[in-house]
């Protein structure tokens, strides 16, 4: 199972000092967070893509390339890449480039962004959110799997004999997750292609996350990629830890009470009960996180949000230390213990996808349709 950090990249004043970091300082702190993630033995660092203040990360591949140069083993991912407002041609090329530079340490998560106004900023119409996600991703799959693409769609200029460069490393496209909080169509999309499904899980009640993941699993099986419990699921989570629960709450409370998302609203206690937010000891975090698998099933990737709401960099780095030293080793062992043998422990990686070979389902543009075609041909010659 993979464990890691997903950063939101918000520039928020520290409520205990009133000081707001500069954008440069915030970007630097995200880099340090990524390096620390590798240093303590976690597997993944993921950054969001946002184009609206107070968020600073607008260019994930630039940042991840910089991090790739300073790391050896860390998997670089996104916690979202905007499939609606980015040009799929540019996504295909940017992430293939990153894949080469990092020697295959890349996967990415598709999403539709955190704000409606982003659509017109990039010349798109928000009413087309789902159709854009559908068309753009399908084109992206072709660009990564066919050397020469001739294509015509609704939302961008047609392509005539176009070749995206560079081609994916080893001719093997990066693994893709589809992230969605509430759109069943996106769970359906992930299931159709046999891609991963990620639920951000923070801010949401478990009943909701459970329904979204269950839908994806059910449809993954219906599309013939394997049994429902073998589908590739990732979850978010949000933690703050100290030696005692009281101390964790004392330190975190001012940040919680003033956080951009839930600040000035519910109490820390209410919100912790309502959502997966866990503020307490490492043992409490372990217990809570193990409980996630009770309602979504055995899953493959767990990302934690630790850097937001104005928390100082040194505090955030210490949180990652605790995760790496005390929490994740236990989680790895316990999750492995409860997972049945037929359920994959890890999501696909570059190495596993290369090993699966060029004939594997991953290399099909539309696995469901193409598999059906092959079956039909086999049937007619029988």
């Amino acid at each position, binding site marked *: 199972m993979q464990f890691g950090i997903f950063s939101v990249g918000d520039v928020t004043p520290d409520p205990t000092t009133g000081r707001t970091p500069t954008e440069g300082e915030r970007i630097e702190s995200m880099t340090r967070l990524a390096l620390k993630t590798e240093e303590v033995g976690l597997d993944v660092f993921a950054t969001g893509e946002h184009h609206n203040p107070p968020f600073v990360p607008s260019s994930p591949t630039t940042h991840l390339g910089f991090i790739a140069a300073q790391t050896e083993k860390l998997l670089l991912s996104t916690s979202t890449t905007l499939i609606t407002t980015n040009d799929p041609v540019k996504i295909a090329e940017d992430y293939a480039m990153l894949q080469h530079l990092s020697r295959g340490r890349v996967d990415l998560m598709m999403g539709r962004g955190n704000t409606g106004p982003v659509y017109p900023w990039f010349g798109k119409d928000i009413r087309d959110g789902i159709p854009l996600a559908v068309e753009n991703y399908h084109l992206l799959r072709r660009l990564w799997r066919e050397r020469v693409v001739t294509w015509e769609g609704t939302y961008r200029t047609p392509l005539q004999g176009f070749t995206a460069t560079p081609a994916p490393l080893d001719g093997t496209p990066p693994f893709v997750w589809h992230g969605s909080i509430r759109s*069943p*169509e996106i769970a359906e999309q992930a299931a159709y292609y046999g891609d991963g499904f990620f639920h951000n899980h923070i801010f949401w009640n478990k009943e909701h996350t459970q329904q979204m993941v269950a839908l994806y699993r059910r449809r993954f099986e219906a599309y013939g990629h394997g049994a429902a419990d073998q589908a590739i699921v990732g979850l978010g989570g949000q933690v703050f830890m100290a030696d005692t629960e009281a101390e964790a709450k004392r330190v975190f409370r001012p940040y919680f009470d003033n956080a951009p998302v839930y600040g000035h609203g519910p109490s820390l206690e209410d919100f912790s009960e309502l959502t997966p937010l866990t503020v307490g000891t490492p043992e409490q975090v372990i217990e809570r996180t193990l409980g996630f698998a009770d309602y979504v099933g055995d899953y493959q990737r767990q990302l934690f949000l630790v850097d937001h709401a104005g928390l100082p960099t040194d505090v955030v780095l210490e949180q990652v230390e605790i995760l790496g030293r005390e929490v994740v080793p236990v989680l790895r062992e316990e999750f492995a213990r409860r997972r049945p043998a037929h359920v994959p422990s890890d999501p696909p990686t570059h190495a596993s996808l290369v090993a699966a070979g060029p004939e594997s389902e991953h290399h099909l543009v539309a696995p*469901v349709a193409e598999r059906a075609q092959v079956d039909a041909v086999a049937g007619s010659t029988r």
Partner: protein
Amino acid sequence: MTRRLVVLAAGLAEPSSTRLLADQLADAVRAQVSSRGEDVSVDVLELRELAHDLATTMTSGGVPTPALSRARDLVSAADGMVAVTPVFSASYSGLFKMFVDALDPDALNGMPVLVAATAGTARHSLVLDHALRPLFTYLRAVVVPTGVFAATEDFGDAGLEERIRRAAAELAALLVGGSGGVGGFAPDLATRPRRSGSELPEPPAFESLLRGHAG
């Protein structure tokens, strides 16, 4: 078949004249349904008990608390509703509106609703027609013709009981009656199904989403 009635009572005081009116309406509906040889179960939602849950939900991006989820499920599973609010500043109370705002837009499709209000003065009596009726019409509920307004002075007046009985009879007729049509021949007015907001809609099959986009 036992019909399910849900009663919203948005009173804040203890004891509450709003709750008193709600109970009288519920009893009258029960009596009217029984007189038609049918049975009804009644669930009362004291919105005061959900005030904290509603504030938490509103300020946390719409994540419902478990108590609010239960209330929403109860509402959408009901066959009919009695909604009673005190009048604050010439309209329904903020608490009442917060609860209605927390319902799914499809929570009340085609549901028969009896609207009622309490106030200190008869000058507020048009609140039923100016505020409550449009609200429930917007939510595609079927509001019965008689609304029940009770100013403080009405609680000592026989006319209130008569209005309660008339409104209850109207609601009971809808609760028990159904569409009255033959299946497949008469249009079903409630074809748009109710949703409490707790369950995910089933997505369309992906091939249909992909149609026209596969270039």
